[in-house]
């Protein structure tokens, strides 16, 4: 693919510094600690990546960002909680695993539909400009968070795990629900990669990203594509929330942190670049995990943003940025 060319000095520097960080931990602490922290980094990285890829898709195709994306992640978790806990139809008549999977699919459909409605009735109405889209979606995000508080109260919710038990890897145990998150995320990533690189849909998407007018002249229905991309991107945020929910907790504010990280990921990776987002997501997941364990959360955050700023100084378009359009 064309993504892997150009000047990737900063990408290598980032990669090497991540390796150095790992070697440091390996030398200073022991292997078990290293594995545990790495696994946590993978779980976080994959969650953030699902959230960030939705944003990367939107930016690539629409040159817009949905600032309610973090709340869409939260809505995904709330939807799963709603179907698993609040209405007990699914869990009453089905074993917990299919009930959970159905809830996840429902969450993707509901939040995906919300995304298409936002595109159709808000973004499109304002001519697809970035600034109105920013304000509208920021407002929408606040409304959604408040709506969840009004509807379901302030108390933290938890989703019962569909995957009890745990596995051992290199002497470290990993809960099955985290494993399920990792596997589901990987399946989704492969599906997305296949969609983008092996289908007519994906070729059209790349064409739109490169030149929207020229793409339209080849017969690509831009309006339809924007709706589909909003659906896919929002559904990815929802499934990330639905996978994250049982592992952590469900609150109306749960989307804020992952949203900020997802933004950092797409800026660091190069706006609109999917492989760039992948590398950046793992880097930030690892930094968060290592940093929080060994340096404390605050210093980890400082370190994260210091790295982002450094990369942007040397390569303002991000690791895999395409430059201007």
């Amino acid at each position: 693919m064309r993504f892997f060319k150009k000047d990737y000095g900063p990408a290598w520097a980032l990669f090497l510094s991540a390796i150095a960080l790992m070697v440091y931990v390996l030398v200073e602490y022991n292997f078990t600690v290293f594995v545990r922290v790495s696994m946590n980094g993978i779980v976080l990285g994959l969650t953030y990546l699902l959230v960030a890829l939705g944003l990367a898709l939107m930016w690539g195709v629409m040159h817009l960002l949905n600032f309610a994306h973090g709340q869409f992640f939260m809505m995904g978790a709330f939807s799963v909680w709603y179907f698993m806990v609040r209405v007990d139809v699914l869990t009453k008549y089905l074993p917990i695993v299919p009930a959970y999977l159905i809830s996840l699919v429902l969450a993707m459909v509901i939040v995906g539909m919300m995304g298409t409605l936002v595109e159709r009735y808000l973004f499109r109405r304002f001519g697809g400009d970035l600034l109105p889209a920013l304000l509208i979606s920021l407002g929408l995000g606040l409304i959604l968070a408040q709506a969840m508080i009004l509807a379901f109260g302030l108390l933290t919710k938890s989703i019962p795990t569909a995957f009890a038990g745990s596995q051992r890897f290199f002497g470290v145990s990993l809960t099955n629900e985290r494993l399920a998150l990792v596997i589901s995320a990987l399946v989704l990533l492969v599906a997305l990669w296949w969609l983008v690189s092996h289908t007519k849909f994906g070729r059209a998407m790349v064409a739109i990203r490169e030149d929207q007018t020229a793409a339209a002249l080849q017969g690509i229905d831009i309006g339809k594509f924007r709706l589909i991309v909003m659906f896919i991107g929002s559904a990815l945020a929802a499934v990330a929330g639905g996978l994250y929910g049982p592992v952590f907790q469900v609150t109306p504010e749960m989307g804020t942190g992952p949203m900020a990280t997802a933004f950092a990921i797409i800026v660091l990776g190069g706006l609109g670049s999917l492989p760039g987002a992948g590398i950046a997501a793992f880097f930030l997941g690892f930094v968060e995990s290592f940093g929080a364990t060994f340096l404390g959360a605050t210093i980890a955050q400082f370190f994260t943003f210091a790295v982002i700023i450094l990369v942007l100084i040397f390569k303002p378009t991000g690791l895999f940025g395409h430059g201007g359009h």
Partner: protein
Amino acid sequence: MPLLIKDLHVRYGALEAVQGVNITVPDGKVVGILGANGAGKSSVLKAVAGTIRSAAGEIWLDDKRIDGMGPHQSIKLGLATVPEGRRVFAGMTVEENLRLGAYSRNDKPGIEQDLQTMFERFPILKERRKQHAGTLSGGEQGQLAIARALMVRPRFLLLDEPIQGLSPVITDLFFDIILKLRDEGVTIMMVEHNVHFVLNLSSYLYLMEQGKVRIEGEPKELTSSEYVQMMYLGR
């Protein structure tokens, strides 16, 4: 199939770039549009292609009204466009560009066959098949742009400065291709600054000035007009 443009207006904010233009392109003919920079030629073409919206007027393709249609709809009626500046997909290979040209089609064997036809017509494209379009020379990009449009198997073709920057040899190639397309029954509307090229190909010409048609007629009528002689033929 004929193309009719009736009282077309195009506005960009306060600027009225096209002010009531009437153009007829008869079935199976080549019609040329001439005019100085900024006369509104490309705006007319873009309105027909559907990449910009017209402010008023009607555009008819056969018995279908196409103003207000997007390009993805008019392409289904057989309308293909070589836009101003070519706009090939620089980050994609020559072959990927050509395949995107056939995006609106579903007949796989036909697409493969047309791909081979394009490689025969434009040997340089075959040679550069796996090369990114952005690395092609200007003239090569010009060939790719027209080949991409032909992948639509158009019944109607819009050309905006197709031979701009092409060498004489390739210009002659384009001349032959356009004649051949016309003989196959493709209806063609062409904007071009090369007056001799347009005069020799077109059966009818429009000369635009400041958003309006100033003179129209057959090539003979136009070349005998004093105004055209002075402004365009340098006599």
